[in-house]
């Protein structure tokens, strides 16, 4: 068995934006990534324009279709290590559940999401007034 590690990142981004960005980031590393709704297990069709993440709170992103099939068949077996990332978006945080945060690809994902969610634009409350 392999154990998932939770990487929780504070977030003020909309859940849809965070999930979409996580998927786009992961799919740059895994070009054949397959994504499913974490609640229903339904595979999402990420067509253009990208609207697949509206209303979702979590996604599972698999390295490819074979990885998804393997997870479905044998679950958290060591052979499936670092082939799936579970992303959960809440009102105040995004959690990445992955196997080995020291793996080079996993580090890219974590760093990417940390820098993305740190953007000022998600944190600064502004008030525009008439000059």
């Amino acid at each position, binding site marked *: 068995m392999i154990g998932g590690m939770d990487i929780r990142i504070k977030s003020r981004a909309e859940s849809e934006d965070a999930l979409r960005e996580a998927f786009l980031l992961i799919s*740059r590393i895994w070009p054949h990534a397959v994504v499913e709704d974490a609640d229903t297990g339904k595979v999402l069709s990420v067509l253009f324009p990208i609207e697949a993440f*509206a209303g979702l709170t979590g996604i599972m992103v698999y390295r490819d279709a074979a990885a998804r099939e393997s997870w479905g068949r044998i679950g958290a077996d060591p052979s499936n290590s670092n082939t799936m990332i579970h992303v959960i978006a809440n009102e105040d945080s995004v959690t990445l559940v992955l196997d080995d945060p020291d793996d080079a690809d996993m580090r890219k994902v974590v760093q990417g999401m940390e820098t*993305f969610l740190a953007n000022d634009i998600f944190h600064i*409350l502004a008030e*525009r007034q008439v000059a």
Partner: protein
Amino acid sequence: MMTEQQWGRALEILEECGLGWWTKATGNSAEFRQYLCSLMEAFAQEYTARCGEAMTSFSVFELYPRRQNQVRAFLQAVASSSSPTMLVMVWRILQGMNIKSVDMRYRMEESFSLDVTLSSPYTGGSDETYQSGDIDSAALVRHLGIMKTNGKPIFDGFYPLHLRRS
């Protein structure tokens, strides 16, 4: 042009998107209506010409109930930039296009240029280029999502400012 009913709904959405200051600043005048409707019409025409999909001046407002965050970001761009071309660029980013390159050049009291190239997130799509010589377009850059992967820079996505409703 928008109907009276559409214009009323557009004003409500502007308010909900934190842009009530804009309608107040203009006194919700006939000139403001003319300006915004003309800009949205020009945007729709440019979008249709570039992307081949029909769009009207009210299409973006119609999407608000199910695409609130995207419409909020877009309308904030409309309040910053009067360039239909750059508004198409914003809409394409909101649809999921990758931001392949951004080149901004500025010379005080001489010149400004912003050149943006977008690429499809899927293989086979062709690049799209957008250019502006209006310094107002610089305001659009602050809406871009910023990230690093493996220390390398990425602009991705176009996000709304958290404007209070006035």
